């Protein structure tokens, strides 16, 4: 197994390089670059002097050097831990990412736990009570959850929260706390804001996991070994949770990586709508402004997360299922 994991990690390096190439090409495809956009914006605000500084800025950012040179410098520095600087606020990319990462992780982890924690039991209930009113209700709920884009859901929640409390729960902290150091009050304030986005994203996630769980459970419940288990006189609880559920978990585990990208997707647009200080919002801004090192680093980070997620799900699969062997 350790050999297998090492192998998988090694394969990730070329994939990562390819992702970096693609990311770089995407950033470089437009005729404009960060400086030309910046100059345009400044000029629009009446700051015409900036036009003369264009070349100096390019020089400073290394944007005037040949493309391959820019790329190799980026990649080499990247693997040495230097992610470059953000053009738009002139701070190191790593600093900006570290600023945004904790909130992103907390919100994502919350949504992740909620989706699995609620989705799985509901899915099992739905499958073991197939066609009961409860199952039909949950199925309807799941289809709405899957059909309704999570950003719209976030918006609708936002409106209801506003109507109920009179507060616009945008962002993850109230104004007075934004630049405050960590404190209990800030944490509570964070929670009072975060539930909204977490619920919105987790709603879709829960629906998705519930559906998958239900389908898997129904498929497993139809298999002959279930009859054997019942014929052995095992209590129904043991049949369902020890055996059927563990078998049904198998395809769910393969989904682990998918659920990660699901969350990244979910929070991408929800964050923008709700103005959450997550890494996805930064990513969108950076992409639009062609702040290439920032956008590139986040793209790589996201891709690595998904790859690691897939690796974890494969390892978990081997651990759960004696038939799976990686050598």
């Amino acid at each position: 197994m350790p050999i297998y994991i090492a192998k998988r990690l090694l394969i990730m390096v070329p994939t990562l390089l390819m992702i970096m190439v693609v990311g770089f090409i995407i950033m470089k495809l437009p005729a404009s670059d960060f400086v030309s956009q910046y100059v345009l914006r400044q000029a629009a605000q009446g700051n015409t002097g900036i036009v003369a500084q264009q070349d100096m800025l390019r020089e400073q950012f290394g944007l005037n050097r040949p493309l391959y040179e820019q790329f190799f410098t980026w990649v080499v520095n990247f693997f040495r831990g230097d992610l470059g600087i953000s053009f738009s606020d002139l701070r190191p990319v790593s600093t900006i990412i570290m600023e945004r990462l904790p909130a992103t992780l907390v919100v994502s982890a919350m949504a992740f736990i909620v989706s699995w924690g609620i989705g799985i039991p509901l899915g099992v209930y739905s499958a073991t009570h197939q066609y009961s009113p409860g199952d039909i209700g949950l199925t309807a709920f799941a289809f709405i959850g899957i059909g309704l884009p999570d950003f719209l859901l976030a918006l609708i929640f936002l409106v209801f929260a506003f109507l109920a409390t009179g507060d616009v729960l945008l962002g993850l902290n109230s104004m007075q706390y934004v630049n405050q150091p960590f404190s209990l009050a800030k944490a509570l304030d964070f929670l009072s804001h975060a539930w909204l986005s977490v619920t919105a994203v987790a709603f879709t996630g829960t629906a998705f996991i519930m559906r998958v769980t239900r389908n898997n459970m129904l498929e497993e419940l139809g298999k002959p070994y279930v009859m054997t288990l019942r014929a052995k006189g095992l209590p129904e609880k043991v049949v369902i949770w020890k055996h059927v559920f563990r078998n049904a978990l198998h395809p769910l585990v393969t989904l682990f990586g998918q659920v990660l990208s699901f969350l990244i997707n979910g929070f991408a647009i929800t964050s923008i709508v709700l103005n959450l200080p997550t890494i996805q919002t930064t990513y969108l801004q950076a992409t639009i402004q062609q702040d290439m090192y920032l956008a590139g680093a986040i793209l790589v980070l996201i891709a690595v997360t998904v790859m690691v997620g897939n690796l974890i799900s494969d390892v978990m699969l081997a651990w759960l299922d004696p038939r799976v062997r990686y050598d």
Partner: protein
Amino acid sequence: MTDIAADAISAAPAAKAERTTVLSVRQLTWRKFLRNKLAVVGLIILVIMYLSALLAGFIAPYGDRETHGQFARQAPHGLNFFDETGAFHPVPFVYGLKRTLDPKTFQQVTTIVPEQKYPLQLFVKGQPYSILGLIKSDIRLFGVEAPGKLFIFGTDTKGRDVFSRILYGAQVSLTVGLVGVALSLLIGVSMGLITGYFGGWFDNVVQRVIEMTMAFPQIPLWLALAALIPPTWSSAQVYFAISIVLSVLTWGSLARQVRAMVLSLKTSDFVRAAKYSNASTARVMVKHLLPSTMSHVLVIATLTIPSMILGETALSFLGLGIKPPMTSWGLLLNEAQSVQVIIELPWLLIPAIFVVLTIISFNFVGDGMRDAADPFSR
């Protein structure tokens, strides 16, 4: 001996076996699909939606860019069967509208003029439109006489009829996913066939590329790619660019599944038989392998469409997708981005209902197709 027994045993001459009709696989599949009620409902909804999108010009009372400036921000103003006195009107009517300035708040308010009643009329003359550029007309299915206005779902901030715009938006939202899926199908199936059949270095390269595309979460990449679309492009160019963006990530998983199927089919008897009877490689691929993978591929494709529709909605909602003067459901929802707007003009969220309905219907149909794809299972 009875007839039943007779034709069952002898597997006999067609004339005799008339009563035991033999169903083709296609008929069996269709029958099985029809047994899934949700799938049938979904299919009916989709057919209605696509037909209405096609006939948007005819069904919508107003044109998509037709503004009614003085009636901007008008709440849904529908048809009535009963008037203020409670009298029943067999032909529904709408009340006339009047804009006045509220003397206290100094805000424009619309009031209903009970004296003015405009009955619903069929086949009224409206703005000219064309269907697929083929049929040009200015007769619209329904409407009310000129000074009267029919805003079933209200109007937006610029005074455009939301109902009509939903119909026109459907033309984009419902098709952008289809074009995207068609593109992924084309790329995915041909890649899957080629890599599965020939293997070798090309297969290796393609597999690595697919692995890479799978490491990207859709939305961030969609955002990056959508941001690439130059602002100077025309609506039509943007439309196709968006469908390309949507298909960039989906062809990979299709190609993988087709490849896996081809790998297992390659050694099956019917493919070998074809090869031994000197069928050309192209013929084996197109006549034998392709049809065997098709049912599975179509199911996946159907289940992919909803995520593409959601993708378009999300991109347009963020202002990175379809741009005016073209319209789409995402773009319509784009107007309802802030709490303030939603509280004042909640009807601007109505397009979301259509998004949800479409997504759910596609899911139902896809599920039904998946179950029906194997007509011999129970």
